């Protein structure tokens, strides 16, 4: 598979990979800090657990937004130059997947504002 094709596949699932990264980070940090009794640990005056969730959410959301915009532009560009059916399809599905991923990432970040870290 060529580098361009690999890039297309990665762009197609970029949002879901970003969600997986967000999920792994927030679950790992919460489990570790709560498991070790470091629920109140703070960094620069902020509690680490909610700060991690917010930071991970912001970073992965931004990355996914970038991927969504990029894939959307690729998709819109199809009228300007001839692209194969597979290319058009990949760009469109990438836009859809990255768009859905934005919602899912936000959905997972909400808990930071609702629940106590280790209760």
């Amino acid at each position: 598979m060529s580098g361009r094709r690999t890039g297309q596949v990665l762009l197609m699932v970029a949002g879901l990979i970003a969600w997986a990264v967000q999920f792994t980070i927030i679950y790992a940090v919460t489990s570790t800090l709560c498991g070790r009794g470091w629920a109140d640990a703070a960094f620069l005056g902020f509690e680490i657990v909610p700060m991690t969730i917010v930071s991970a959410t912001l970073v992965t959301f931004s990355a996914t937004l970038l991927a969504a915009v990029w894939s959307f532009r690729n998709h819109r560009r199809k009228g300007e130059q001839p692209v194969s059916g597979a290319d058009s399809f990949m760009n469109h599905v990438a836009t859809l997947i990255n768009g859905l991923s934005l919602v899912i990432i936000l959905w997972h970040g909400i808990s930071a504002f609702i629940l106590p870290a280790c209760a």
Partner: protein
Amino acid sequence: MNAPESPRSFGRNEPDYPNPLPRPEGEFEALQKAWKAPSGLSFITAVNNTYVGLWYIGTAFLFFILAGILALIMRAQLALPESNLVGHDLYNQLFTMHGTVMMFLFAVPAVEAASVYLLPNMQAARDLPFPRLSAYAFWAYFVGGLVFFGTIFFGLAPNGGWFMYPPLTGSKYSPAENADWWLLGIGFIEISAIAGAIEIIVGVMKTRAVGMSLDKLPIYSWAMLVFAVMIVIGFPAVILATLLLEMERAFGWPFFIAERGGDPLLWQHLFWFFGHPEVYIIFLPATGMVSMIVPTMAQTPLVGYRLIVLALVATGFLSFGLWVHHMFATGLPKMSLSFFSAASTAVAVPSGIQVFAWIATIASGRMKLTTPSLFIIGFLFIFTLGGLTGVMVAMAPFDWQAHDSYFVVAHLHYVLIGGMVFPLFAAFYYWMPVASKYPLSERLGRWVFGLMFLGVNVTFLPMHITGLIGMPRRVYTYPVGMGWDTLNVVSTIGAFMIAAGVAIFIYDLARKFRFASDDNAGNVWNASTLEWLPNGNYNTRSIPEVVSRDPLWDQPNLSKDVEEGRYYLPGTATGGREALVTSPFDARPQYILQVPGPGWQPVLAAVFTAAFFLLLTVKFVLTSVVCGVIAVGCVIWWLWETDPGPVRPPADIGGGIVVPVYVTGPANHSWWAMIVLMVVAGMVFTCLIFSYLFLWLVNPGAWPPQNVRIPEWTWPSLAAFLYCGSAVLIAAASRQLRGEDRRSPISVPILIGVALLFLCGGSAIDLWAQWGTDLSPSAHAYGAAVYAIMSLQIFFVLTTLIMGAYTIARWLARRLDSVRRTTFDNTMLFWYYTVGQGLVALIVVHCFPRLTGGI
């Protein structure tokens, strides 16, 4: 209909077909001869996907019947309070075997089996790329599954529930061999599932009709691709879990024993990291079937193709973020639960997208109310209800109330029967005319559907209430006056209604099913996809070029043209079995794959692999080891005949397209399979590292425990040096094997041999260093985790040793040179993986405890 693209866009300019008529005399006969299945006793050595696929489906259905009978016995026991029909010990075995057999021996194999049969036909491929691997997977499953099921007749069946939670299943509370049968039997059958998944991934990506680019791929192929990737990611977790629990039971390594630093929750994490995706692993292929059946029944293209692809891919990802929702009652922090609760509700979105797409397709066409249609409607109704109760139990507070009650039993049966069994029955009725001379009876089919649909609802709808008023699952009886009596009687009546429906289906099957390789009932539904092309043992006479997702609707003469041999590769270029390999995105012809034919090797390898695991269960260690060695020998015998090299110059497949009959490197199908295998191995290792870190988390101040020394830096550094050195030597051997002049220098086996010494040396030094610190694997979870990581690495080093020796043997036999080097490439990839894994293992085992400083 989709607007067809311009046909024949792969470098040819002629407006006509790729191959002219009339076809040369003897061409078709040669094709038939190459693909003829063996007769007599050798019939079982057949590897054609149509044969293996049908045996596979039949065996999976047999297990469905057997597990269903177990369910009927349980329902008979529960029909009345304080019943003595079945004692508690047998009841424990019954519910464990029912769940285990349904999940591991019916559901996953059934959908995998269906794909072995359907995928090549649907993609107009001659066969799957590794037919012997399919045969091996089937026979391993067949032998292992039957022996495993037979344990119930001897009181040896597992009895710890289908998810086998320790400490109940540890040696302290389950000292008998019942649990070992589950751990070794199921762990082994999962390996068979992974073999099938590798086959499916490479098959979907590399063997398709010409022009069947990703946007024209049947949705079923998309579903199977996601399914197979999920198996590759998810199943290693349960394989590792079974290994860890078996090591604990056999050698006392305390991964799950709390008194010695273990934690039973580790099992739950590993099991459910597999177990929840397992639900979608079963469900997604079923949705793929539904997405094929609905457009045919409505006689209109599928609405929302791209949205359905989105839904499949998104479900595949999200399903790996749900596993803790089976652990809501284990006392994890609420914040952690909320992540899984969020994922559990989020996954309903892609599922909903698919449901709405099917409804829109039905609405945009004219749905014929055939038996497959009825089962689809039943699926939509039952699965949607199961999905709704799924959203309910995704809410942690509700789950705490319903946990381990009959509400959960009702929910999971609505999801699994609705989401998998009904689509499978729809598929049986829908695709029967492809496999049989006669379709099944529509009149009896309506009876089957009616009884099953009513039966499912009569059985499981009351269970929601039974659970909510307090009946726990897995109790073998209950006292009078709890308010559960009537509901249980109703559920039992419903179960026997389902059985009556299935019995009619079997009767109809016996009446109507007659295996057809080239005289099937034909396209009775006016379907649009390629499995309905005229076919034989070779599948399609010529490989078509498709221009849309509904080729039989958009290319009206396609069936006739394909059958006459007008399309690609209408004969056999090498005189043997072949498949046309196409590029993964655009499906452009790449090369002709020389497909191995029938042989005893996969059958014998499977039987002896099964014997190895099953004899180990009953502690016949020596016999087991002998069987294991024979199994490895059979695999080597099997592989020896593969990697044939370029037996002839590039061949013209039609339309002026000339493709090679052998390629190496990343374009080769076995390169892809090896990459997938490395992902499987990487997932096993990742799960093991997760286990190590999890055990560290639950052992504050004891990682390592007091009085345990960590080896000096010198040893891991030396081991790392040797690992890296072996990789460098293999890279050097690879460079020696480059060029077009079929070079085969003697330096190649020498470099491989020295590299083997380096690799084995690295592993031995690490083991020796740990051993020298008197670290015991059975005293504490720390030692167990360290030795588990080293054991896995030693296993990979030994495998690499066998592969390296095999590669040298091929060089000695003059079967390895700079052109014919696929065997070397596979060994090289595996080698690099083993070195990488070894280096990460060294870092974790030697650096992590130092970095954390024992906290």
